[in-house]
């Protein structure tokens, strides 16, 4: 069992995350890649900026990894998150999970991204042509 967590300000690489969870004991590997969308409610996005409270973000991501390995008996979990300035289409987050059977891989991967969006102290700012917004900050 292995949990691999990383936050970095350089491009993320899906093949690294796949490699981190490959295991001959696993028949299923689920991969989620979150990318920068070009608009929010019809308003064109120019680019995004992510910032993290890194020590806590790492420990919260580690907690998610541990929950997954316990709840779904996942063999391996890899979560990589970007910080800094991202262009449209860039990868913001990658989650890879491997489990003996496919159902658990899908469920665990979905749990990981849903929980990350609720608990991990990382913030996203959308930059538009005529302004910028910290996502989800206001009601």
């Amino acid at each position: 069992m292995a949990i691999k967590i990383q936050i970095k300000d350089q491009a993320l690489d899906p093949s690294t995350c796949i490699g981190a969870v490959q295991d001959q004991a696993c028949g299923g590997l689920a991969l989620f890649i979150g990318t920068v969308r070009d608009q929010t409610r019809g308003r064109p996005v120019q680019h995004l900026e992510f910032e993290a409270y890194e020590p806590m973000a790492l420990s919260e991501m580690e907690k998610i990894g541990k929950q997954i390995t316990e709840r779904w008996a996942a063999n391996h979990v890899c979560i990589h998150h970007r910080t800094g300035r991202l262009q449209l289409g860039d990868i913001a987050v990658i989650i890879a999970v491997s489990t003996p059977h496919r159902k658990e891989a899908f469920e665990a991967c979905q749990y990981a991204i849903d929980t990350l969006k609720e608990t991990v102290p990382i913030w996203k700012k959308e930059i538009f042509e005529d302004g910028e917004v910290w996502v989800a900050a206001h009601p």
Partner: protein
Amino acid sequence: MEIKLLAFGIARDILHQQEMTMDLNGISSVADVKRFLVAKYPDFEKLKSFSLAVNCNYVADDQLVKDGDEIVIIPPVSGG
């Protein structure tokens, strides 16, 4: 007696700085820190929510703060 306050995302914009020290005079709990912040920076009340993490952990509002704690203001997160 002092604590270190760190702010990220919109909280950093509201404070106009990433880091400040705060005297613990009259402050004993996390809830007191929140009240202090809202009173001094009313923009915190406009947020959907904000919580405080003490030494890298989410804590309940009634947790006591002590000298040397690192407290981070956590506005609604939006990673992923």
